[in-house]
Structures are given as structure tokens and as C-alpha cells.
């Protein structure tokens, strides 16, 4: 069986657009706009109906989000960088929603390097701005010659790779999650077809497995042992599914539920952690660039 892992789907192609030439509208952009819509709706919902006294639960949550964001930025950068609160917050929420939207089976915009590179470039511009502001344009350029002028190319590279490394770290993690999810899904589909090729071959095979499973459940309950009980449940369910398959309803049963377990790590945990890391690096790099 073949598994193909592709990038974003190209939804529309416009030829001969001025300046750009050929413009491809990809899934990345479409989903990014969907994510923007979701975030905007959330913002408008959370930001409406605010009261000074007798606040609602919704407002309490909104204030908690705001306070944690402010604490995060101030904790990493200090109070003089309050104007970066919106940027950090926006990158964080966009990243998290983009990462988690893959749970709904939708292409994740962060699985496209261009998304992270866009954020990384914005951060890079800010870093450079603060470096120049801190030591002047001369001091900034002179910094490339330190500690000795031979290191100039390495210094230039290290400067340019800051946004690239930030982008690639985030992108790589999300992409690997997508790839692993795809592989697990494919593997489960293959296992499914192999398993039900046997179980569904004959009506009696399914019935026997189901009955054996039922017997194991009863045994496990009587002896109060967990292992036969669990094995019994699995066997019974597989047996019943085998019978259903024999009767004509074919479906990749194994792909239900099971992929959710690795996705707990790769999508939920990985997605949240990468959003957090990206924002932490953003704040730290800008703070570092501005000097102490």
C-alpha cells in the first residue's frame, strides 16, 4: 500500500497577475483565513458585554487570558515592552488554533513553512530594529565584525538564521505530527483490512470470536482479573464488527478512536508547546536585541 504525504492543496491558480505572475491560492491561506475568522469571532465574543461590577464567567475567563498574557510578556521582557503584548498574543493564539485545527481533520496552516516564516520575518525585523536602536546603525554593523572580522560571514549567517530556525522548529514539529498521524492512519487502515479479511471471511469466525470474548469477560469478572476482562472486551467488539463486516458493511473500524491517542501528544501537546516556544523565543530575542 502506498502512502503519499503532500503539502497544502492548491485550491486555485491565477495566471498573469501583475507583479506576482502566477498566484496559487493554497489550503494554507484558506484555512488561515478560517482561523482568523474563528479568532476574530472569539475576540468579539469575549470582548463584548463587559461590565465593571458583577462580571460574568465569560468576562472572568477573558480577564484571566489577558492577565496571563500580560504576565507572560512582562515576565520575559519586563514592563517596558508592553507594546508587544498584542503581537505575542496574536502569534500565540493563531499558532495554537492553527495547530489544533488539524484535530478536526483540516489542513493545519502551520504545517506550511511559509506561515511560520512570515511570523519569523516579522520577529526578525523587530529584532533588527531593536539592535539598531540600541547601538546605532554603525554599532549594529560593527557587531558583525566581532570578535574578529573573519567571523563576518558566520555572524551574518547566524543573524539570518534566527527567523529561519524559529520558523523551522515550529514547522518541523507540526509537520512531523502530521506525518506521523498520516502514517498511523495508514498503518491502522492496513491492519484493519488484514484483520477483517480474516474476521469477515466467514460469519462463524466473527460469532466464535465474539462468544470467546464474552466468555473471557465473564471469566475476568468472576476471578476479578483485569487482563482477561479487557482482552474479552476487545475480542467481543472485534467479533461483533467481524459479523457486521460479513453482513456487508465494510468500514476501517480501527481508525476510529485509536489515532486519537498519539494525536493527544503530537497535536495537543506538541501544538501547544510549539506555540509557547515560538512566543517565548520572540520575547526573549527582542529583549536580548534591545540590550539590558
Amino acid at each position, binding site marked *: 500500500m502506498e502512502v503519499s504525504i503532500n503539502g497544502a492543496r492548491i485550491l486555485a491558480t491565477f495566471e498573469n497577475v501583475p507583479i506576482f505572475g502566477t498566484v*496559487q491560492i493554497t489550503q494554507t491561506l484558506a484555512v488561515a483565513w478560517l482561523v482568523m475568522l474563528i479568532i476574530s469571532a472569539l475576540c468579539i465574543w469575549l470582548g463584548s458585554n463587559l461590565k465593571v461590577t458583577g462580571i460574568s464567567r465569560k468576562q472572568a475567563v477573558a480577564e484571566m487570558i489577558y492577565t496571563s498574557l500580560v504576565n507572560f510578556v512582562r515576565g520575559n521582557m519586563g514592563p517596558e515592552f508592553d507594546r508587544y503584548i498584542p503581537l505575542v498574543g496574536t502569534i500565540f493564539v493563531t499558532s495554537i488554533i492553527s495547530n489544533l485545527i488539524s484535530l478536526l481533520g483540516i489542513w493545519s496552516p502551520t504545517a506550511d513553512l*511559509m506561515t511560520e516564516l512570515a511570523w519569523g520575518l516579522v520577529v526578525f525585523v523587530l529584532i533588527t530594529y531593536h539592535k539598531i536602536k540600541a547601538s546605532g546603525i554603525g554599532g549594529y554593523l560593527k557587531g558583525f565584525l566581532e570578535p574578529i572580522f573573519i567571523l563576518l560571514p558566520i555572524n551574518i549567517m547566524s543573524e539570518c538564521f534566527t527567523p529561519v530556525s524559529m520558523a523551522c522548529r515550529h514547522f518541523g514539529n507540526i509537520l512531523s505530527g502530521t506525518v506521523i498521524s498520516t502514517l498511523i492512519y495508514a498503518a491502522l487502515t492496513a491492519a484493519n483490512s488484514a484483520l477483517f479479511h480474516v474476521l469477515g471471511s466467514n460469519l462463524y469466525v466473527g460469532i466464535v470470536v465474539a462468544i470467546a470474548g464474552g466468555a473471557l469477560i465473564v471469566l475476568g469478572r468472576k476471578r476479578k482479573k483485569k487482563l482477561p476482562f479487557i482482552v474479552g472486551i476487545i475480542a467481543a467488539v472485534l467479533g461483533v464488527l467481524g459479523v457486521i463486516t460479513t453482513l456487508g458493511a465494510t468500514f476501517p473500524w480501527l481508525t476510529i478512536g485509536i489515532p486519537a491517542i498519539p494525536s493527544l501528544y503530537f497535536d495537543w501537546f506538541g501544538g501547544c508547546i510549539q506555540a509557547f516556544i515560538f512566543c517565548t523565543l520572540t520575547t526573549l530575542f527582542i529583549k536580548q536585541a534591545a540590550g539590558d
Partner: protein
Amino acid sequence: MDTLYQSLVTVNPVTLIAQICNLFIQLLIVKIFFLDKIKAIIDQRREAADKQITEAETAKSEALAIKQTYEQNMQEAKAKADDLLMTAQRTANSRSEEIIAQAQQQAAQIKSKAAADIALEKKKAINEAKNEISDLAMAIAGKVVARELNAGDQADMIDRFIDELGDNV
């Protein structure tokens, strides 16, 4: 129509530029519709809380002032009462002393008057006794003179005299 895919890692300038624009649009939306509003409401709440605290502090200091005035008044009243009591006591003391002195004086007066009366009475009694005695002497003398010749009568007369004396005394 075939479904077209990008390869896994592609540099697509249009997507890049669009994503940068998206980031800034999103930033504006988040800022205007969420952060600014929440910030404003939190500031308002803080202001209200500050105001309430200030008000509470003002009320507290006012209450303290009132308490102080009250305590001062109480102290003053107490001093006044003490003063009144002291004055009353002093007045009572002096008055009682006065009364006692008066009483003593009166008693002395009465005593001296009584003594004078007694002395007067005594004098009067003595005088009366003297008069009686002299009358008696006179009478005895008269009797003695009248009966001298008769010796028999003398004893008789003496008996009578004693009898009469007994009657008079």
C-alpha cells in the same frame, strides 16, 4: 480536474506575504476587539476599587475623628462630673461642719443657760430656805420666849416645835 498539491516544503512568496498581512490584520482585530477592551475594563475596575478603598479610608478617618471627639467629650464630662461631685462633697462637708458647730454652739448655749437657771434656782432655793429658816428661828424664838416660864411647858414646847419642824421641813 486533478487535485494539485504543493510539495511538503515549498517557498511560496504569495503565501508568505499573505501570511504577514494576515498576521497584522489579526493583530489589529485582537488588539481592538479584545485586548484594548479588556484592558479598559480592568483599568476601570481597578479605578473603582481604588476609589472604594479611598472612600473607605476617608470614612475610617472620619469615624476615628468622631470617636476622638466623643472620647474627648466623655473625658470632659467625666472631669465635670468629678468636679461637681467634689464641689458637692466639699459643700456638704463644710455644711455639716457648720451644722455641727452650730449645734455645738446651741448645745453650749443651752448648757450654760441651764447652768445659769440651776444656779438661779439654787440661789432662789437657798434664799427661800434662808427665809424659812429665819422664819422658823423667829417662830422658835417666839415660842421659846412664850414658854420660858413653864418648865413643864418647855418640854412640851420642844416636842411641839419638833413636830412643827417636822411638818415644815
